[in-house]
């Protein structure tokens, strides 16, 4: 059973570039076409179940707009943190 993850996309930084959408392995991301950020971009979002908290979206995000969480033990979380 894959881990369950969730993300927060910060409207202040997201420019709707879609890099995260293209990179997301379970392909659970899309642009939120129902609203705009204050800069006029459609922000990215997770739109269906399946986020594993792999953080690949955060790795490709040029604006560090994404915070990633995962429902796992602390040691596994440290393993993924920014590919170090």
């Amino acid at each position, binding site marked *: 059973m894959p881990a*369950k*993850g*969730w993300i927060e996309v*910060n409207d*202040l*930084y997201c*420019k*709707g*570039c*879609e*890099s995260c*959408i*293209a*990179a997301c392995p379970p392909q659970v991301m899309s642009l939120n076409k129902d609203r705009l950020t204050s*800069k006029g*971009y459609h922000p990215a979002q997770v739109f269906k179940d399946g986020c594993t*908290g792999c*953080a*690949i979206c*955060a*790795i*490709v*995000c*040029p*604006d*560090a*707009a*994404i*915070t*990633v*969480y*995962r*429902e*796992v*033990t*602390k040691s596994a*979380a440290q393993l*993924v*943190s*920014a*590919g*170090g």
Partner: protein
Amino acid sequence: MATMTPENLVYKRPLAFTETPTHYCPGCTHGTAHRLIAEVLDEMNLVGRTIGVAPVGCAVFAYNYFETDFVEAPHGRAPAMATGIKRCLPDRIVFTYQGDGDLASIGTGEIIHAAARGENITVIFINNANFGMTGGQMAPTTLPGQKTTSSPNGRDVELQGYPIRVAEMLATLDGAGYIVRRSLHDPTNIRRAKKAIRTAFETQVRGLGFSLVELLSTCPSNWNLTPVESLTWLEEHMIPYYPLGDFKVAPSITAAKL
């Protein structure tokens, strides 16, 4: 939504990144490069003793995005400014952040000699095959046949010469310590790029010589592609001409197992 606790946190925005939203175009990998540098500065606890040197180019306002001291160099001169700072403050960490117009065009004199002198500084070199800020003109890194605003029919090597492979060129210098090329076009390569940036800063911290990380980067606006298309263009067109790899790793750096 489940409760968020520190144990659940996998990734958050690095502290060395200021809270200011960047002015870079959507999808521009300048942001990615900045983020990786900020992550490395956080992890190595260097923010308080680092001085950055900003270029002239899209990253002219780089100093708005890092929590470090910063100075602004004239176009191409960042390695010389960095030399001046490092020679006066040898225990501080000094890095330059330069685009390809800045480093490979007007700045060729400064970068070659900083490397030849083995200045103990770190250079982050963003190669996106054009002069971005000024509207996408041909740069010394523009590929043969590539259309730009000053090579509207595509770069003609007969009239406009061939691109410069900076990493390979600098690697021929005895004074150079760590010269590598990485790419920012997909997660695997971004991870490798971060490792290289980390190694470069470790090289400086340990006094092991001049380090330069060339990062193949996208320029969606001037390439007239979407951000995602430009990642593909980079992989298909730039990597064949600018191979990824380690071009110079001084023995002392290998031995340090950074």
